[in-house]
């Protein structure tokens, strides 16, 4: 349904844009309804850039992003507004996503102003109540409150409720859990799980492999802007083939097993090479499991 085909992104950096930094190299993938696709990688791997390009917050240098077959990198402003009816994002820091001067529910009101100006007030109110309910919030507990009066988990769920008001098909969730406490993050994570059961496609960008493993069907591991390994979550995490994925998985701290009990030799990897070259191609190693060749 949402499809990225050979997408590249390069930024101009340095004084007067004298240098070119390629952040995303030749990334292709697709997400189907009712599926959570995780994008994991270290900082600087380009995972956030992918999320931002899907949301068209930054432009694509090369390649195409298609929703139901239509290339949205080429549509104008009007087409983009239509696109946002279907695709919405939620970001890392819930506290800075709100304007602290206004009540938090203003984000919901703004959806009405720009997308549903003709919907009757009473009808709208019940719609708001439904969407708050679907993210596990009591309308009475959050409406009319200022951002500082709500917890991080409540604010984050309200942003998801805002996205749901639009009957979206795809949600881009960029590190939405990392700012939350262990006791509340699971609520947000389980919410994504129930949304996916209702047919929503979720692009879940994270650096936390255990979260990716918990919630997603498929996973993409990125390094230096390119995909190094992708496939069904169980296959990629259960039998990582690329040395980078192995290193990454070996360093994840886990309860019940200590690093010292299970020493996996860390493979030295080549440092960042020439990023303007096309990355190593992906080859199929198993059913629903692709790995980039090393070198």
């Amino acid at each position, binding site marked *: 349904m949402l499809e990225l085909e050979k997408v590249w992104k390069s930024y101009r950096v340095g004084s007067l844009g004298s240098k070119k930094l390629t952040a995303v190299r030749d990334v292709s993938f697709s997400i189907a309804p009712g599926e959570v696709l995780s994008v994991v990688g270290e*900082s600087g791997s380009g995972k956030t850039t992918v999320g931002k390009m899907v949301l068209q917050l930054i432009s694509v240098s090369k390649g195409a992003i298609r929703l139901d077959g239509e290339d949205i990198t080429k549509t104008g402003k009007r087409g983009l507004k239509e696109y946002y009816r279907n695709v919405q994002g939620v970001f890392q820091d819930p506290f800075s996503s709100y304007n602290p001067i206004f009540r938090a529910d203003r984000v919901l009101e703004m959806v009405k102003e720009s997308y549903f100006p003709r919907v009757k007030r009473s009808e709208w109110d019940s719609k708001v109540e439904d969407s708050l309910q679907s993210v596990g919030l009591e309308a009475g507990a959050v409406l009319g409150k200022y951002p500082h009066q709500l917890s991080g988990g409540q604010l984050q769920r309200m942003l998801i409720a805002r996205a749901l008001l639009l009957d979206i098909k795809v949600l881009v969730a960029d590190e939405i859990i990392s700012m939350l*406490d262990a006791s509340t993050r*699971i609520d947000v994570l389980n919410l994504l799980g129930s949304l996916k059961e209702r047919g929503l496609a979720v692009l879940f960008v994270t*650096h936390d492999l255990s979260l990716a493993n918990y919630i997603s069907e498929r996973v993409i591991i990125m390094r230096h802007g390119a995909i190094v390994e992708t496939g069904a979550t169980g296959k990629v995490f259960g039998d990582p083939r690329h040395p980078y994925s192995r290193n990454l998985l070996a360093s994840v701290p886990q309860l019940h097993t*200590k690093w010292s009990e299970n020493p996996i030799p860390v493979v030295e990897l080549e440092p960042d090479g020439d990023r303007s070259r096309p990355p190593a191609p992906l080859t199929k190693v198993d059913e629903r499991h692709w790995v980039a060749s090393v070198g």
Partner: protein
Amino acid sequence: MALDVNDLRVHYRTTKGDVRALDGVSFSIADGEIVGLAGESGCGKTTLGKSLIRLDGRMRHVGGNVLLDGDELPIGNDRAMNKHRFKDVSIIPQYSMSAMNPTRRIGKMIADLLRSRGLSYRNLKDELVHRLELVGLPERVLDNYPIELSGGMKQRMVMVLSTLLDPSLLIADEITSALDVSNQKAVAETLVRFRDMEFVKSMIVVTHDLSLVYQIADTIMIMYAGRIVEKAPAETIVKAPKHPYTKALISALPEVGLEYGDKRLKSIPGKPPQLLNPPTGCRFRARCPLASDECAEQPPMVDVDGGHQAACWKLED
């Protein structure tokens, strides 16, 4: 006994009254022990770390005392505390990646710092270079500006610097939270190595990441709303926790290998109490599945087993 903390109370002064961030905290740490201190944000874990080295302007030492190697630390007295800092007690602060002076070359900055302690950079330089090599940093980084190093390199630099004078106690405050998993592992293992090489005698590792601290700590303390609710060897905390809060916290952690479809993780309902006017009795009462009338009274910290203590009325269950 390297460190002995007795009924420590530290409050924050606000216009609305005192926020009781530490409300009667007692524990001790043995020589060569790494203690992990974990809890939700706002539970007072950073305050505890800070109060052992420097109270900032809003913090007030209300009661209790701290003994380090048998001598009392004057934690309420900023000036008297100064001669202990860096030499006896040292800290690797949260956001230590931005703790270095950006306008000075690193070597120059270290020289300034040592001079302020009446020490000579020249005498310590060999040891410094030796330790930098231990963490994989070449000598030439001393001629670099902080901006020229990566996040992981800066973190290691600060770690070497904080432990240069072989302090008795090191406080490491959320030092891995801003790093990638592979750097996290390297930094955590360096802490253990520093202890093994006796650069520091004992260590408090403050973190919200229980699975990380489990990797390196000998003992883990769980804090909730300004108090320690459970203290036990790392293995026991994870495999046989006693306090309902610890149990809930551990069952809310996803792990590699666990999937949404197989098993639904549960969160802890509600949120921690305000510390401005904390409730009486057990502070976890409002969120606790086992709470009953007796919980209106503060449960004492009792020994469950060798080295395992918990504060709850329902420990037998």
